[in-house]
């Protein structure tokens, strides 16, 4: 599976120092806060709510994330510059990683 072909929500923003892609759940409070945090910082990013797509597709996505990052996907799962990742939303960690 090519993750870039997924139907992401694209959020525009003036800051794009890093490419940020967030795998989230529409029902999760921390996911909601991570997304709001980036919007508040006027950061450009993409996100997708895995709980709103077919089971087969999201299982493939989780398998790709598991293999690439050697972690069991928990949410929010942020992929930074297609190379690093953050799991969960701990604001200081996100600020440090994104240079905010």
């Amino acid at each position: 599976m090519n993750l870039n072909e997924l139907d992401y929500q694209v959020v525009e923003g003036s800051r794009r120092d890093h490419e940020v892609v967030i795998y989230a759940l529409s029902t999760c409070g921390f996911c909601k806060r991570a997304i709001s945090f980036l919007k508040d910082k006027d950061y450009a990013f993409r996100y997708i709510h895995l709980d709103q797509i077919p089971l087969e597709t999201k299982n493939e996505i989780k398998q790709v994330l598991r293999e690439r990052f050697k972690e069991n996907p928990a949410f929010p799962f942020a992929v930074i510059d297609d190379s690093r990742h953050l799991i969960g939303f701990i604001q200081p960690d996100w600020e440090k990683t994104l240079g905010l």
Partner: protein
Amino acid sequence: MSEKNKEQTRLFTRMVAEKQGWKLNPDPSFYEDLVEGLMNNYNRYGYFLCPCRDSDGSREADKNSICPCLWSRQDILEYGNCFCALYISQSLAASGKQPSSIPDRRYEA
């Protein structure tokens, strides 16, 4: 399967917290987000799947993540809040600190 509304879901969370001796997330907007998430999960899956865990496709596969999840007691003892931060310990509530994002024990061996 009859659907649940927000008030029924709030009642469920209050009953769980009272029975377990926990407190509910003190942040009103966070708490309401979680109530909505729980309600949506109940209405689409038929059970209160933890709002911060994705369904693995069946009740059997998700059974440990049905609220209150299997790991909530251990998480609350160790971190002061459950994984989705719906329930918090008496001491965290008394401290006034915010619940935080914690690791997910779901896939731990």
